[in-house]
């Protein structure tokens, strides 16, 4: 069951690579949040109540509700509903992402030194999700999509941290959650500011600051 959920989590990235609608991206974020919650639910022992409550709050509340709702609000404010001008067509995006995900599954079968410490499927899929997110950041053209891919990367890192059968101190976990949350919040505010200062939300417009040809 757990492995099926993880594979489903990996597959959400393919949909992310193929679609240009920002609302669909946000729905995928909700889905990823719920999947991560279910992975936690099935995967971990529920003996440590504090840690379990924390993970539930992080996945279900923050990742599946608060962040998508915030991004949804920004999409409506900025009236940017599509990311059409990706550097390469969506079909190739899908192809590249599929190859990376396949690579992730191959890693799962590979016998690493010290592999006893980690769950291979978790590890392979999370590494694939992180790499796909990074590649999508370079391919997609809207800064709002970049924020969404930053969040999927964070989700991948969250899955990676679940793959290691060890726990960080609660204070570190809390700090990480708070930092990520505030980072998304600040990026969201910046998106709004950029929308006001520049005409639109294309990454290519952010090219005023140069080493030569500087003007006040």
């Amino acid at each position, binding site marked *: 069951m757990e492995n099926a959920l993880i594979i489903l989590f990996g597959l959400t990235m393919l949909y992310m690579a193929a679609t240009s609608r920002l609302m669909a991206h946000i729905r995928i974020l909700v889905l990823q949040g719920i999947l991560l919650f279910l992975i936690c639910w099935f995967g971990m022992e529920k003996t440590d109540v504090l840690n379990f409550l924390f993970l539930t709050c992080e996945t279900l509340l923050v990742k599946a509700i608060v962040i998508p709702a915030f991004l949804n609000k920004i999409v409506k404010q900025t009236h940017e509903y599509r990311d059409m001008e990706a550097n390469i067509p969506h079909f190739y995006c899908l192809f590249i992402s599929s190859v990376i995900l396949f690579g992730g599954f191959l890693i799962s079968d590979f016998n*690493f*030194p*010290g592999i006893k*410490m*980690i769950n291979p499927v978790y590890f392979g899929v999370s590494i694939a999700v*992180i790499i796909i997110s*990074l590649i999508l*950041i370079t391919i997609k053209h809207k*800064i709002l999509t*970049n924020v969404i891919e*930053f969040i999927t*990367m*964070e989700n991948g*890192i969250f899955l*990676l*941290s679940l793959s*290691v059968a*060890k*726990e*960080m*101190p609660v*204070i*570190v976990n809390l*700090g*990480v959650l*708070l*930092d990520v949350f*505030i*980072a998304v919040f*600040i*990026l969201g505010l*910046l998106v709004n*500011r*950029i929308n006001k*200062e*520049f005409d639109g939300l294309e990454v290519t417009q*952010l090219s*005023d*600051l140069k*080493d*030569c*040809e*500087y*003007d*006040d």
Partner: protein
Amino acid sequence: MMINLLLIFPILACLIMCIFKAKWMNNFFINVYALMHLVISICMSMHLPVGSSKYFCADSSNIVFMLLLSIVFMAVAIYNNGYIKHETTDCRRLRHYSYMMLIFVLSMTGAILSTNLGLSWVFIEATTLASAYLILFSRTKSSVEAGWKYVYICSIGIALAFVGIILLTIATGNMNSLYYHELMANAHIFNPFWLKLAFVFILFGIGTKMGLAPVHFWLPDAHSESPSPVSALLSAALLNSAFLIILKVYKITVLAGCADFGKLMMLVMGFLSLFITAVFVFHINNYKRMLAYSSVENMGILVIGCAVGGLAIYAAILHMIGHSLIKASFFLTSGNILEIFKTKKIKSVTGLLKTDKKTGWLWIASFLGIVAFPPSVLFISEFLMIKSMIFQKHYILCGLFVVLLTIVLYGLGKAVVKMSFGEPHEGKNYDENVKEVSFGMYFPQIVMLLMAFALGIYIPHFVNELINGTITGLAG
């Protein structure tokens, strides 16, 4: 107790400012915190008990970093009193600026003092978030662009550093701890494959924050667009905090027997930083951007020193001290120039010495300091590094090092000479603007430059002991 005070005071101050909203409080709390920071750091350097806890502690490895942060913050606080009132009169914006300045210094303090790698990560990410507002402060189109690049690039870099931390926990085997002392004590049993992988991620991730090439792209934008006191803090304090974390992780790789791999990675990034600065510094026509590139160069020198090892590690720590003092002074003086000429363009600034003699001489002295002109302390540190490379028979590296530094010197010198000498632009009168520059906007630079040049002539016993303590704590 004292450490807790350092970490709690800014939050209390923000709460008080938020409740009372009095205008006088804005600068007052920054000054009080700066003074408190300096006093507590001096207590730490005198090895007085400051109340270490499980998560935060002052030991020989981080005292130099704390002391530097305190000195730079004190200088910035004094400068800020005169500077910020020219930026805006909007009380609300000034209040937000003060909140963020306090939280920014708090997060740097946390990053330096934390005993846990995970906690250091949390604080380093917090520095990004706190300083984002400070970079955006002028609310221009270019500052929005710089702010976006800063938050986005640094957040991704730091997220990759977190991947590195997770990989490090895999390398640790059965041990379940991220405390530095436990990691160092058990480093010999770590799995080398995972440790090397973790080091790459952490070096690139935290290296993003430290401004090492090729992940330095946020740095010139952020440093040039933020208000000058913030640029000084970013360059002279924030980069050091990130450097401390890299040093600690590097020590773990050394203790685990993977020193060669770590050295190679650091040498590559260090020389790339020097190379990038040497290439870009020639075509720059924004003087604050030029200083930012100089920071990239100096961060490169620091990691090269650590990678070369031996005497060069001593030189690297000395270089960090000198760089922080001189670069803070350089950035603060650039604030004076901006105040007088109202432009960041090198071409539009000429005859600085005739327009404002004090700013002109500070600008030239800072330049001489940063390019390691004797008796600047950077001369001693770079000389020791070169000597160390020759003794270790790294002749090619040494040659490359000297050539790249000379190119950077020429690039910086060209701009500084053009700006300082000659006649001011005809038909323009800057006298009114010069009057706006108060004594508090010269004083911190003078003190810091005096310290940097005095250290170049004589390194007092206690400074030597502090540096040696750092080396045994971090690199031994």
